[in-house]
Protein backbone atom coordinates (compact mmCIF):
# COMPACT_ATOMS: atom_id res chain seq x y z
CA UNK A 1 0.00 0.00 0.00
CA UNK A 2 1.25 3.40 -0.85
CA UNK A 3 1.78 5.67 2.11
CA UNK A 4 -0.41 8.75 2.28
CA UNK A 5 2.31 10.81 3.87
CA UNK A 6 6.04 10.33 4.08
CA UNK A 7 5.99 10.65 7.87
CA UNK A 8 5.84 6.90 8.51
CA UNK A 9 9.05 5.60 10.07
CA UNK A 10 10.38 2.16 9.34
CA UNK A 11 10.58 -0.04 12.45
CA UNK A 12 14.19 -0.71 13.31
CA UNK A 13 15.00 -4.12 14.64
CA UNK A 14 18.76 -3.81 14.63
CA UNK A 15 20.36 -5.04 17.84
CA UNK A 16 21.21 -2.27 20.26
CA UNK A 17 24.66 -0.81 20.05
CA UNK A 18 26.92 -0.89 23.06
CA UNK A 19 26.10 2.68 24.05
CA UNK A 20 22.39 1.96 23.80
CA UNK A 21 22.80 -1.16 25.89
CA UNK A 22 24.34 0.91 28.65
CA UNK A 23 21.07 2.88 28.85
CA UNK A 24 22.97 5.66 30.54
CA UNK A 25 23.42 7.85 27.50
CA UNK A 26 19.74 7.71 26.65
CA UNK A 27 18.81 8.34 30.26
CA UNK A 28 21.00 11.42 30.26
CA UNK A 29 19.35 12.60 27.04
CA UNK A 30 15.90 12.10 28.56
CA UNK A 31 16.88 13.93 31.68
CA UNK A 32 18.18 16.82 29.61
CA UNK A 33 14.79 17.05 27.95
CA UNK A 34 12.93 17.15 31.26
CA UNK A 35 15.44 19.65 32.60
CA UNK A 36 14.76 22.00 29.72
CA UNK A 37 11.09 21.90 30.63
CA UNK A 38 11.88 23.70 33.86
CA UNK A 39 12.44 26.88 31.88
CA UNK A 40 9.36 26.64 29.71
CA UNK A 41 6.43 28.95 30.14
CA UNK A 42 3.62 27.37 32.11
CA UNK A 43 0.35 27.39 30.21
CA UNK A 44 -1.63 27.11 33.45
CA UNK A 45 -4.36 29.69 34.07
CA UNK A 46 -4.61 30.20 37.85
CA UNK A 47 -8.38 30.04 37.89
CA UNK A 48 -10.00 32.15 40.56
CA UNK A 49 -7.58 35.01 39.96
CA UNK A 50 -7.18 34.61 36.22
CA UNK A 51 -10.02 33.63 33.98
CA UNK A 52 -9.87 32.17 30.57
CA UNK A 53 -11.36 34.24 27.74
CA UNK A 54 -14.44 32.69 26.21
CA UNK A 55 -14.50 32.23 22.48
CA UNK A 56 -16.87 34.63 20.68
CA UNK A 57 -19.21 31.76 19.74
CA UNK A 58 -19.41 30.35 23.28
CA UNK A 59 -22.87 29.14 24.24
CA UNK A 60 -23.57 29.18 27.95
CA UNK A 61 -26.50 29.56 30.31
CA UNK A 62 -29.82 30.70 28.83
CA UNK A 63 -31.26 34.15 29.30
CA UNK A 64 -34.85 35.22 28.69
CA UNK A 65 -34.69 38.66 27.18
CA UNK A 66 -36.74 41.79 27.75
CA UNK A 67 -37.21 44.73 25.43
CA UNK A 68 -36.04 48.29 26.15
CA UNK A 69 -39.06 49.05 28.30
CA UNK A 70 -38.57 46.00 30.41
CA UNK A 71 -41.37 43.90 28.89
CA UNK A 72 -40.80 40.18 28.47
CA UNK A 73 -40.30 39.27 24.85
CA UNK A 74 -41.34 35.63 25.10
CA UNK A 75 -44.81 34.80 23.77
CA UNK A 76 -44.74 31.11 24.65
CA UNK A 77 -45.00 30.05 21.03
CA UNK A 78 -43.18 26.82 21.78
CA UNK A 79 -40.82 26.93 18.80
CA UNK A 80 -37.79 26.67 21.06
CA UNK A 81 -39.22 23.59 22.76
CA UNK A 82 -39.87 22.03 19.35
CA UNK A 83 -36.41 22.90 18.12
CA UNK A 84 -34.70 21.54 21.22
CA UNK A 85 -33.06 18.19 20.36
CA UNK A 86 -32.67 17.28 24.00
CA UNK A 87 -36.26 18.16 24.94
CA UNK A 88 -35.06 20.27 27.79
CA UNK A 89 -37.56 23.10 27.49
CA UNK A 90 -41.12 23.09 28.79
CA UNK A 91 -43.48 26.01 29.03
CA UNK A 92 -47.04 26.97 29.81
CA UNK A 93 -48.73 29.87 28.05
CA UNK A 94 -51.11 32.35 29.59
CA UNK A 95 -53.14 35.33 28.38
CA UNK A 96 -52.08 38.83 29.32
CA UNK A 97 -54.66 40.49 31.57
CA UNK A 98 -55.64 44.12 31.78
CA UNK A 99 -52.98 46.22 33.44
CA UNK A 100 -50.12 43.85 32.67
CA UNK A 101 -49.07 45.64 29.47
CA UNK A 102 -45.91 46.91 31.12
CA UNK A 103 -44.88 43.35 31.97
CA UNK A 104 -45.43 41.41 28.75
CA UNK A 105 -44.98 42.74 25.24
CA UNK A 106 -47.63 40.63 23.48
CA UNK A 107 -51.03 39.34 24.51
CA UNK A 108 -49.74 35.86 25.17
CA UNK A 109 -46.88 35.15 27.51
CA UNK A 110 -45.11 32.27 29.22
CA UNK A 111 -46.55 31.74 32.67
CA UNK A 112 -44.09 28.94 33.26
CA UNK A 113 -40.82 28.47 31.43
CA UNK A 114 -38.41 25.78 32.53
CA UNK A 115 -35.15 24.51 31.12
CA UNK A 116 -33.65 21.33 32.47
CA UNK A 117 -29.94 22.12 32.50
CA UNK A 118 -29.04 18.46 32.97
CA UNK A 119 -30.67 17.67 29.61
CA UNK A 120 -29.63 20.78 27.75
CA UNK A 121 -26.72 20.27 25.39
CA UNK A 122 -26.16 24.00 24.79
CA UNK A 123 -26.55 23.62 21.02
CA UNK A 124 -28.18 27.04 20.64
CA UNK A 125 -31.01 25.81 18.40
CA UNK A 126 -33.58 27.47 20.70
CA UNK A 127 -31.82 30.76 20.14
CA UNK A 128 -32.05 30.26 16.38
CA UNK A 129 -35.66 29.11 16.48
CA UNK A 130 -36.98 32.03 18.51
CA UNK A 131 -38.90 34.49 16.29
CA UNK A 132 -39.07 37.12 19.02
CA UNK A 133 -35.39 37.31 20.03
CA UNK A 134 -36.51 36.21 23.47
CA UNK A 135 -34.01 33.51 24.34
CA UNK A 136 -30.27 33.90 24.20
CA UNK A 137 -27.34 31.83 25.32
CA UNK A 138 -25.08 33.88 27.56
CA UNK A 139 -21.38 33.60 28.34
CA UNK A 140 -21.62 31.93 31.73
CA UNK A 141 -21.50 28.36 32.95
CA UNK A 142 -24.23 26.48 34.67
CA UNK A 143 -23.01 26.45 38.27
CA UNK A 144 -22.58 23.12 40.04
CA UNK A 145 -25.15 22.01 42.59
CA UNK A 146 -25.78 19.17 45.04
CA UNK A 147 -29.37 18.67 43.99
CA UNK A 148 -30.86 17.54 40.72
CA UNK A 149 -33.98 19.63 41.30
CA UNK A 150 -31.95 22.82 41.29
CA UNK A 151 -30.83 22.17 37.75
CA UNK A 152 -34.33 22.76 36.45
CA UNK A 153 -34.14 26.49 35.90
CA UNK A 154 -37.38 28.38 36.43
CA UNK A 155 -38.42 31.52 34.63
CA UNK A 156 -37.20 33.65 37.54
CA UNK A 157 -33.74 32.13 37.19
CA UNK A 158 -33.66 32.75 33.47
CA UNK A 159 -35.13 36.22 33.11
CA UNK A 160 -32.75 39.09 32.56
CA UNK A 161 -33.04 41.95 35.12
CA UNK A 162 -35.54 44.61 34.25
CA UNK A 163 -33.81 47.62 32.59
CA UNK A 164 -36.26 50.13 34.03
CA UNK A 165 -35.99 49.07 37.65
CA UNK A 166 -32.54 47.45 37.73
CA UNK A 167 -30.61 49.16 34.97
CA UNK A 168 -27.27 48.15 36.39
CA UNK A 169 -28.12 44.48 36.60
CA UNK A 170 -29.48 44.58 33.07
CA UNK A 171 -26.32 46.14 31.75
CA UNK A 172 -24.22 43.58 33.62
CA UNK A 173 -26.26 40.71 32.23
CA UNK A 174 -25.85 42.08 28.72
CA UNK A 175 -22.13 42.31 29.31
CA UNK A 176 -22.12 46.02 28.49
CA UNK A 177 -19.77 47.07 31.24
Amino acid at each position, binding site marked *: MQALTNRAKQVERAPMTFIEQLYLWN*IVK*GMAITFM*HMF*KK*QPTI*RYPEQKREFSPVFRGLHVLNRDEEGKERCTACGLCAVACPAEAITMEAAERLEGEENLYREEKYAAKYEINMLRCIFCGLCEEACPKDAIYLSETFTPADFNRKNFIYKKTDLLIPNPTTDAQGFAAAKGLN
Partner: protein
Amino acid sequence: MTILALDWFLLIEKLILIAVIIFASLGVALYTTFAERKVAAILQDRPGPNRAGPFGLLQPLADGLKLITKEEIIPTHANKWLFILGPGLAMTAALMTCAVVPWGGTIDVMGHKVDLQIADINIGILYVFAVVSMGVYGVMIGGWASNNKFSLMAALRGASQAISYELAMGLSLIALLMITGSLSLRTIVEQQVGHVWNIVYQPVGFLIFFICALAECNRTPFDLPEAENELNFGYHQEYSSMKLGFYLFSEYINMFISSTIMATMFFGGYDLPFVTSHLTNPGTAAIVGIVVLMTKVVMFIFLFMWIRWTIPRFRYDQLMDLGWKKMIPLALANMLVTGFFILLKQNNWHF
Protein backbone atom coordinates in the same frame (compact mmCIF):
# COMPACT_ATOMS: atom_id res chain seq x y z
CA MET B 1 23.45 3.20 92.94
CA THR B 2 25.85 2.71 90.12
CA ILE B 3 23.18 3.28 87.48
CA LEU B 4 23.59 6.94 88.21
CA ALA B 5 27.31 6.76 87.56
CA LEU B 6 26.71 7.80 84.01
CA ASP B 7 28.14 10.68 82.13
CA TRP B 8 25.00 12.76 82.43
CA PHE B 9 26.27 15.42 80.10
CA LEU B 10 26.87 12.82 77.40
CA LEU B 11 23.41 11.36 77.93
CA ILE B 12 21.65 14.73 77.66
CA GLU B 13 23.79 15.79 74.73
CA LYS B 14 22.97 12.62 72.83
CA LEU B 15 19.27 12.83 73.70
CA ILE B 16 19.08 16.39 72.42
CA LEU B 17 21.00 15.41 69.31
CA ILE B 18 18.70 12.44 68.69
CA ALA B 19 15.61 14.57 69.14
CA VAL B 20 16.91 17.28 66.86
CA ILE B 21 17.94 14.83 64.16
CA ILE B 22 14.70 12.86 64.28
CA PHE B 23 12.59 15.98 64.10
CA ALA B 24 14.81 17.39 61.38
CA SER B 25 14.47 14.17 59.36
CA LEU B 26 10.71 14.23 59.80
CA GLY B 27 10.62 17.87 58.74
CA VAL B 28 12.81 17.15 55.76
CA ALA B 29 10.59 14.21 54.82
CA LEU B 30 7.52 16.41 55.14
CA TYR B 31 8.97 19.00 52.86
CA THR B 32 10.37 16.40 50.50
CA THR B 33 6.81 15.35 49.73
CA PHE B 34 6.12 18.97 48.89
CA ALA B 35 9.31 19.22 46.86
CA GLU B 36 8.38 16.07 45.00
CA ARG B 37 5.08 17.54 43.91
CA LYS B 38 6.65 20.86 43.07
CA VAL B 39 9.52 19.34 41.08
CA ALA B 40 7.12 17.07 39.22
CA ALA B 41 4.98 20.07 38.41
CA ILE B 42 7.84 22.22 37.20
CA LEU B 43 9.25 19.45 35.04
CA GLN B 44 5.78 19.04 33.52
CA ASP B 45 5.19 22.78 32.93
CA ARG B 46 2.67 23.07 35.77
CA PRO B 47 2.70 25.36 38.81
CA GLY B 48 2.15 22.55 41.34
CA PRO B 49 0.63 23.01 44.79
CA ASN B 50 0.39 26.76 45.39
CA ARG B 51 -2.78 27.34 47.38
CA ALA B 52 -1.91 26.55 51.02
CA GLY B 53 0.17 29.46 52.24
CA PRO B 54 2.68 31.47 50.21
CA PHE B 55 3.88 29.34 47.26
CA GLY B 56 1.94 26.46 48.80
CA LEU B 57 4.52 26.13 51.57
CA LEU B 58 1.93 24.97 54.10
CA GLN B 59 0.78 22.18 51.80
CA PRO B 60 2.74 19.39 53.61
CA LEU B 61 1.17 20.45 56.91
CA ALA B 62 -2.26 20.24 55.33
CA ASP B 63 -1.39 16.80 53.90
CA GLY B 64 -0.18 15.60 57.28
CA LEU B 65 -3.30 16.89 59.00
CA LYS B 66 -5.43 15.17 56.42
CA LEU B 67 -3.62 11.85 56.94
CA ILE B 68 -3.95 12.07 60.72
CA THR B 69 -7.63 12.88 60.71
CA LYS B 70 -8.59 10.11 58.30
CA GLU B 71 -10.31 7.01 59.55
CA GLU B 72 -8.07 4.18 60.74
CA ILE B 73 -9.17 1.04 58.97
CA ILE B 74 -7.93 -2.42 59.88
CA PRO B 75 -9.37 -4.93 57.45
CA THR B 76 -11.45 -7.70 59.05
CA HIS B 77 -9.27 -10.58 57.93
CA ALA B 78 -6.00 -8.76 58.35
CA ASN B 79 -3.56 -9.91 60.97
CA LYS B 80 -4.11 -7.10 63.42
CA TRP B 81 -0.82 -6.99 65.31
CA LEU B 82 1.40 -7.40 62.31
CA PHE B 83 -0.75 -4.93 60.41
CA ILE B 84 0.13 -2.33 63.01
CA LEU B 85 3.72 -3.49 63.39
CA GLY B 86 4.52 -3.13 59.69
CA PRO B 87 4.41 0.67 59.33
CA GLY B 88 6.06 1.08 62.71
CA LEU B 89 8.98 -1.07 61.63
CA ALA B 90 9.31 0.76 58.33
CA MET B 91 9.41 4.11 60.10
CA THR B 92 11.78 2.95 62.86
CA ALA B 93 14.23 1.48 60.39
CA ALA B 94 14.14 4.63 58.30
CA LEU B 95 14.81 6.87 61.29
CA MET B 96 17.50 4.67 62.82
CA THR B 97 19.88 5.10 59.91
CA CYS B 98 20.62 8.74 60.72
CA ALA B 99 22.44 7.70 63.92
CA VAL B 100 25.82 7.25 62.28
CA VAL B 101 25.87 10.14 59.85
CA PRO B 102 28.30 12.92 60.79
CA TRP B 103 26.26 16.09 60.31
CA GLY B 104 29.16 18.41 60.97
CA GLY B 105 32.47 18.74 62.79
CA THR B 106 32.94 19.17 66.52
CA ILE B 107 31.60 22.12 68.49
CA ASP B 108 32.28 23.38 72.00
CA VAL B 109 29.34 23.48 74.41
CA MET B 110 30.14 24.61 77.96
CA GLY B 111 33.66 23.29 77.79
CA HIS B 112 32.65 19.92 76.38
CA LYS B 113 33.51 18.75 72.93
CA VAL B 114 30.31 17.75 71.16
CA ASP B 115 30.41 15.75 67.95
CA LEU B 116 27.55 16.52 65.60
CA GLN B 117 26.93 12.81 65.23
CA ILE B 118 24.87 10.50 67.41
CA ALA B 119 27.24 7.54 67.41
CA ASP B 120 30.67 7.32 65.84
CA ILE B 121 30.84 3.54 65.72
CA ASN B 122 33.75 2.05 63.85
CA ILE B 123 31.50 0.07 61.49
CA GLY B 124 29.19 2.95 60.62
CA ILE B 125 28.46 2.01 57.06
CA LEU B 126 27.71 -1.62 57.93
CA TYR B 127 25.29 -0.36 60.53
CA VAL B 128 23.47 1.54 57.80
CA PHE B 129 23.29 -1.65 55.76
CA ALA B 130 21.93 -3.61 58.68
CA VAL B 131 19.21 -1.09 59.40
CA VAL B 132 18.28 -0.77 55.76
CA SER B 133 17.90 -4.52 55.52
CA MET B 134 15.58 -4.31 58.54
CA GLY B 135 13.41 -1.90 56.58
CA VAL B 136 12.42 -4.79 54.31
CA TYR B 137 10.50 -6.32 57.22
CA GLY B 138 8.21 -3.32 57.41
CA VAL B 139 7.27 -3.83 53.79
CA MET B 140 6.95 -7.61 54.01
CA ILE B 141 4.97 -7.72 57.24
CA GLY B 142 2.67 -4.95 56.12
CA GLY B 143 2.07 -6.60 52.78
CA TRP B 144 1.42 -10.02 54.25
CA ALA B 145 -0.71 -8.91 57.17
CA SER B 146 -3.07 -6.98 54.88
CA ASN B 147 -4.38 -10.33 53.61
CA ASN B 148 -4.55 -9.03 50.08
CA LYS B 149 -2.97 -10.69 47.07
CA PHE B 150 -1.81 -7.43 45.52
CA SER B 151 -0.21 -6.34 48.75
CA LEU B 152 1.52 -9.69 49.16
CA MET B 153 2.88 -9.65 45.61
CA ALA B 154 4.10 -6.10 46.09
CA ALA B 155 5.74 -7.01 49.39
CA LEU B 156 7.52 -9.97 47.80
CA ARG B 157 8.68 -7.80 44.94
CA GLY B 158 9.93 -5.19 47.35
CA ALA B 159 11.81 -7.70 49.45
CA SER B 160 13.44 -9.52 46.55
CA GLN B 161 14.39 -6.23 44.95
CA ALA B 162 15.91 -4.94 48.17
CA ILE B 163 17.92 -8.13 48.72
CA SER B 164 19.15 -8.22 45.13
CA TYR B 165 20.32 -4.64 45.06
CA GLU B 166 21.82 -4.77 48.53
CA LEU B 167 24.45 -7.14 47.17
CA ALA B 168 25.60 -4.84 44.40
CA MET B 169 25.46 -1.91 46.80
CA GLY B 170 27.70 -3.66 49.28
CA LEU B 171 30.14 -4.72 46.60
CA SER B 172 30.36 -1.21 45.19
CA LEU B 173 31.13 0.08 48.66
CA ILE B 174 33.83 -2.51 49.29
CA ALA B 175 35.91 -0.91 46.54
CA LEU B 176 35.55 2.44 48.30
CA LEU B 177 36.33 0.96 51.69
CA MET B 178 39.52 -0.56 50.27
CA ILE B 179 40.66 3.00 49.57
CA THR B 180 39.54 4.56 52.83
CA GLY B 181 40.55 1.64 55.03
CA SER B 182 37.85 2.51 57.53
CA LEU B 183 34.16 1.81 58.01
CA SER B 184 33.55 4.80 60.23
CA LEU B 185 31.68 7.52 58.40
CA ARG B 186 33.44 10.26 60.35
CA THR B 187 36.87 8.92 59.39
CA ILE B 188 35.77 8.68 55.78
CA VAL B 189 34.67 12.32 55.81
CA GLU B 190 37.77 13.50 57.61
CA GLN B 191 39.94 11.81 54.98
CA GLN B 192 38.15 13.81 52.32
CA VAL B 193 38.43 17.18 54.05
CA GLY B 194 41.21 19.11 52.33
CA HIS B 195 41.77 16.32 49.81
CA VAL B 196 39.88 15.28 46.72
CA TRP B 197 36.51 13.66 47.22
CA ASN B 198 36.11 9.93 46.88
CA ILE B 199 34.01 10.34 43.74
CA VAL B 200 37.28 11.02 41.87
CA TYR B 201 38.63 7.61 42.84
CA GLN B 202 35.37 5.72 42.55
CA PRO B 203 33.13 7.06 39.76
CA VAL B 204 31.91 3.59 38.79
CA GLY B 205 31.40 2.66 42.42
CA PHE B 206 29.32 5.78 42.90
CA LEU B 207 27.21 5.04 39.85
CA ILE B 208 26.45 1.53 41.08
CA PHE B 209 25.77 2.80 44.58
CA PHE B 210 23.45 5.47 43.27
CA ILE B 211 21.45 3.06 41.12
CA CYS B 212 21.19 0.61 44.00
CA ALA B 213 20.11 3.43 46.30
CA LEU B 214 17.29 4.20 43.88
CA ALA B 215 16.28 0.55 44.03
CA GLU B 216 16.56 0.36 47.82
CA CYS B 217 14.36 3.43 48.24
CA ASN B 218 11.77 1.98 45.84
CA ARG B 219 12.12 5.05 43.67
CA THR B 220 11.33 5.13 39.97
CA PRO B 221 12.59 3.47 37.77
CA PHE B 222 12.65 0.74 40.42
CA ASP B 223 9.27 1.41 42.07
CA LEU B 224 7.90 -2.01 41.22
CA PRO B 225 6.54 -2.61 44.72
CA GLU B 226 4.30 0.37 44.11
CA ALA B 227 3.53 -0.29 40.47
CA GLU B 228 0.07 1.24 40.45
CA ASN B 229 -1.05 -0.21 37.16
CA GLU B 230 -0.09 -3.77 38.08
CA LEU B 231 -0.64 -3.91 41.81
CA ASN B 232 -3.25 -1.20 42.42
CA PHE B 233 -1.29 0.62 45.07
CA GLY B 234 1.43 -1.71 46.28
CA TYR B 235 2.11 -3.16 49.69
CA HIS B 236 0.32 -0.35 51.52
CA GLN B 237 -2.92 -0.81 49.64
CA GLU B 238 -5.04 -1.69 52.67
CA TYR B 239 -3.56 1.02 54.83
CA SER B 240 -5.21 4.28 55.67
CA SER B 241 -4.64 7.28 57.86
CA MET B 242 -1.31 7.72 59.60
CA LYS B 243 -0.28 4.10 59.06
CA LEU B 244 -0.24 4.86 55.37
CA GLY B 245 1.47 8.11 56.25
CA PHE B 246 4.22 6.18 58.03
CA TYR B 247 4.91 4.11 54.93
CA LEU B 248 4.96 7.16 52.70
CA PHE B 249 7.10 9.14 55.13
CA SER B 250 9.53 6.29 55.65
CA GLU B 251 10.07 6.22 51.91
CA TYR B 252 10.97 9.89 51.90
CA ILE B 253 13.16 9.55 54.99
CA ASN B 254 14.97 6.69 53.28
CA MET B 255 15.54 8.97 50.33
CA PHE B 256 16.89 11.68 52.61
CA ILE B 257 19.20 9.28 54.42
CA SER B 258 20.52 7.64 51.29
CA SER B 259 21.25 11.10 49.88
CA THR B 260 23.12 11.87 53.08
CA ILE B 261 25.09 8.64 52.89
CA MET B 262 26.02 9.28 49.28
CA ALA B 263 27.08 12.82 50.09
CA THR B 264 29.13 11.51 53.01
CA MET B 265 30.76 8.58 51.28
CA PHE B 266 31.50 10.06 47.89
CA PHE B 267 31.10 13.83 48.07
CA GLY B 268 33.00 14.80 51.19
CA GLY B 269 30.11 15.05 53.65
CA TYR B 270 30.27 18.41 55.37
CA ASP B 271 33.43 19.38 53.46
CA LEU B 272 33.43 22.48 51.29
CA PRO B 273 36.56 22.33 49.11
CA PHE B 274 39.24 24.94 49.86
CA VAL B 275 37.17 26.36 52.73
CA THR B 276 36.52 23.82 55.48
CA SER B 277 40.18 23.01 56.13
CA HIS B 278 40.94 26.73 56.62
CA LEU B 279 38.13 27.43 59.10
CA THR B 280 39.68 27.75 62.55
CA ASN B 281 36.65 28.58 64.69
CA PRO B 282 34.86 25.25 65.35
CA GLY B 283 31.45 26.93 65.70
CA THR B 284 31.63 28.53 62.26
CA ALA B 285 33.01 25.32 60.80
CA ALA B 286 30.08 23.34 62.23
CA ILE B 287 27.49 25.74 60.81
CA VAL B 288 29.20 25.84 57.42
CA GLY B 289 29.45 22.05 57.55
CA ILE B 290 25.75 21.54 58.19
CA VAL B 291 24.78 24.00 55.47
CA VAL B 292 27.15 22.39 52.98
CA LEU B 293 25.95 18.88 53.78
CA MET B 294 22.33 19.95 53.49
CA THR B 295 23.01 21.59 50.14
CA LYS B 296 24.53 18.38 48.84
CA VAL B 297 21.59 16.39 50.19
CA VAL B 298 19.07 18.71 48.56
CA MET B 299 20.88 18.33 45.26
CA PHE B 300 20.75 14.55 45.55
CA ILE B 301 17.07 14.63 46.44
CA PHE B 302 16.45 16.80 43.41
CA LEU B 303 18.34 14.28 41.31
CA PHE B 304 16.16 11.48 42.70
CA MET B 305 13.04 13.40 41.75
CA TRP B 306 14.37 14.46 38.41
CA ILE B 307 15.00 10.81 37.58
CA ARG B 308 11.58 9.82 38.85
CA TRP B 309 9.81 12.23 36.54
CA THR B 310 11.93 11.29 33.54
CA ILE B 311 12.40 7.54 33.38
CA PRO B 312 9.62 4.96 33.10
CA ARG B 313 9.49 1.90 35.31
CA PHE B 314 11.46 -1.26 34.58
CA ARG B 315 9.78 -4.54 33.86
CA TYR B 316 10.35 -7.09 36.59
CA ASP B 317 12.69 -9.36 34.62
CA GLN B 318 14.64 -6.33 33.42
CA LEU B 319 15.02 -5.24 37.03
CA MET B 320 16.44 -8.60 38.06
CA ASP B 321 18.65 -8.76 34.97
CA LEU B 322 20.07 -5.36 35.74
CA GLY B 323 20.66 -6.21 39.36
CA TRP B 324 22.20 -9.64 39.04
CA LYS B 325 23.74 -9.70 35.57
CA LYS B 326 24.96 -6.13 35.18
CA MET B 327 25.35 -4.45 38.55
CA ILE B 328 27.01 -7.27 40.48
CA PRO B 329 29.60 -8.18 37.80
CA LEU B 330 30.33 -4.49 37.29
CA ALA B 331 30.78 -3.99 41.02
CA LEU B 332 33.06 -7.02 41.21
CA ALA B 333 35.15 -5.76 38.29
CA ASN B 334 35.34 -2.35 39.92
CA MET B 335 36.54 -4.00 43.11
CA LEU B 336 39.26 -5.93 41.27
CA VAL B 337 40.47 -2.86 39.40
CA THR B 338 40.56 -0.86 42.60
CA GLY B 339 42.51 -3.59 44.35
CA PHE B 340 44.95 -3.70 41.46
CA PHE B 341 45.64 0.01 41.70
CA ILE B 342 45.96 -0.07 45.46
CA LEU B 343 48.58 -2.80 45.19
CA LEU B 344 50.33 -0.86 42.45
CA LYS B 345 50.43 2.23 44.63
CA GLN B 346 51.81 0.28 47.58
CA ASN B 347 54.53 -0.93 45.23
CA ASN B 348 55.37 2.68 44.27
CA TRP B 349 53.78 2.33 40.83
CA HIS B 350 56.09 -0.49 39.72
CA PHE B 351 54.85 -3.80 38.47
